[in-house]
């Protein structure tokens, strides 16, 4: 492979890892700082991606309208896609939160898992909504009129990194505020947090909604990178499980850890793809399964031997103390 090819490959790798990084940051708000067990990330991934796609795409017209169905098409700029994805995911999270956040953590887990599977079913079966199993293709990319072809990836890389850093800074600010301290107090001991006069339900809800909005942005970033989305992308494996492994590996309760985990695990994931190429044909056909098996074993090892992840939680000092 010539050098141009290698760098192009690296750029695409970093873009995907950074998009996963955004998901990890969202999950870190929920799990790392508040202890909320969301195993339906794929659902927010899916809703975020579809929302942004439909906000930025025009309504299909002419002959195309016979083949492509979608609920709405607003033809608006990319930024509105990101914001819309965040808002819709926030609303979904709010609805799930009402019955589950007063109960044990496990109920939230089951409910989020259920909502993720339900969304996938709906997007698969309802053609009028977003073109069913074929999904939506040819999504617009921001600033694509400036640069074309393969060079465009560099532009998108910058956009993704800007969004990721903004999300990171926003969460860091929130987490070092009194609001963030309440979240961590709830994670450590719900009863004493509530005895100190904190409305535990309300703070959990804010954390769930905030984290899910970040996941919605992640979904939108993904949609405009690949330009094509269909329901089979948002499976529990690619949409939920791998993000959990990233956060646990990097260090939950630490935003730098969340990002580090995303890059490390995505690196391992892509690297293992190369390793599979070296194996004999019989095994290589099983490649994707084998790689997920290894990721699953990695998660179990982390949970038992290093539950704090690579970085572990860092001590949070109030911004007031600086």
């Amino acid at each position, binding site marked *: 492979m010539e050098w141009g090819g290698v760098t192009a490959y690296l750029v695409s790798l970093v873009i995907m890892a950074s998009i996963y990084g955004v998901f990890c940051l969202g999950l870190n708000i929920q799990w790392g700082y508040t202890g909320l067990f969301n195993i339906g990330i794929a659902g927010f991934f899916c809703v975020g991606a579809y929302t942004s796609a439909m906000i930025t795409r025009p309504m299909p017209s002419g002959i195309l309208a016979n083949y492509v169905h979608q609920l709405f098409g607003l033809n608006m700029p990319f930024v509105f896609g990101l914001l819309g994805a965040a808002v819709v995911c926030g609303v979904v999270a709010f609805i799930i939160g009402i*019955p589950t956040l007063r*109960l044990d953590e496990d109920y939230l887990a*089951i409910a989020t898992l259920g909502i993720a599977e339900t969304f996938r079913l709906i997007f698969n079966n309802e053609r009028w909504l977003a073109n069913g199993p074929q999904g939506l293709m040819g999504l617009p990319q921001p600033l694509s009129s400036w640069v074309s072809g393969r060079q465009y990836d560099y532009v998108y890389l910058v956009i993704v990194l800007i969004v990721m850093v903004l999300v990171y800074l926003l969460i860091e600010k929130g987490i070092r505020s009194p609001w963030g301290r309440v979240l961590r107090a709830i994670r450590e001991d719900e009863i004493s947090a509530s005895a100190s006069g904190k409305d535990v339900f309300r703070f959990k809800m804010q954390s769930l909604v905030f984290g899910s909005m970040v996941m919605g942005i992640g979904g939108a970033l993904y949609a405009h990178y690949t330009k094509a989305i269909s329901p089979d992308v948002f499976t529990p494996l690619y949409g939920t499980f791998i993000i959990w492994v990233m956060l646990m590996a990097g260090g939950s309760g630490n935003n730098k850890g969340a990002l580090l985990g995303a890059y490390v695990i995505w690196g391992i994931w892509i690297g293992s793809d190369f390793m599979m190429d070296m194996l004999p044909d019989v095994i290589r056909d099983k490649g994707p399964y084998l790689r997920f*098996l290894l990721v*699953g074993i990695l998660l179990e090892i982390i949970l*038992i031997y290093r539950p704090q992840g690579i970085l572990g939680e860092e001590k949070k000092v109030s911004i007031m103390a600086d």
Partner: protein
Amino acid sequence: MAELIVYGIVLGSIIALGAIGITLVYGIVRMANFAHGEFMTWAAYLALFIVTVVLPWLGVPDSTFGPLSFGWRMLIAFPVTMVAVAFIAIFFDRLLYKKLRFKKSSAVILAMSSLGVSFILRMIILIVWGADYRFFRPGVMRPALELPLGIKIRPDQIFILTVALVLVVLLYLFLQKTKMGKAMRATADNTELALISGIDTEGIVMWTWGIGGGLAAAAGILYGIDVQIHPGMGWNFVIPLFAAAILGGIGNMYGAFVGGLVIGVAEQVSTAFLLPTYKLAVAFMIMILILFIRPQGIFGGSEK
């Protein structure tokens, strides 16, 4: 409609067998086991392996019982698989969950570990067997019996109902009459008190996994007999299983049985109005509804 209700009861009895395991593990081991569906998948594939490879090699004849779609091979494979999956469940407890319990990891970490186990188990199935759909006995569809009200039911389905009922009655007798069963109920009620009374809770935990795994195995094989076998079958059961357990009051095994029947009937009846693929979403909606109205379930759960 009457026919859909009957099919719903058949599906519901399969869900009930799985949900009892979920609720037992939740009540006694105090963890949400997301790998429970995978026990069903493993059971179906293990039974398939025994029926199509091991028993023919041992020379067990391939005859069928009258109107049923299976014969001695399945009758031998059934209990063997139940025991095997019970040991698989115990194995993962010893390998992973026990370590986490001893480290005083939170219930959520245990649940996450079980989620990892569920992916590991499914990937092994996909590596060994591939992603194709399989049947215990391909081809021949047995003629259905005509019941009053125009209900058509296959003899296999009557067999499924009978087996499920027998297993639940056996479990009832075990929990009510044996010392181990009483100790299990005591642990589910109050773990600390059970410990103080000298009950060996780690032993109870192993029995719980064994029984849960064995019942899940039965559910998986029965589903395989009724419908088909594929790597995603168990994962698709996770939501209905939890819905049934929550509906009956988590920790309450009799509630889980009734919950399973309710979910099964609701799923089948919904196919009269909705696409059959939405069955899972129907189970999920019922669960959300219950969480809104009565989160402790219809019959109330065990004390936590």
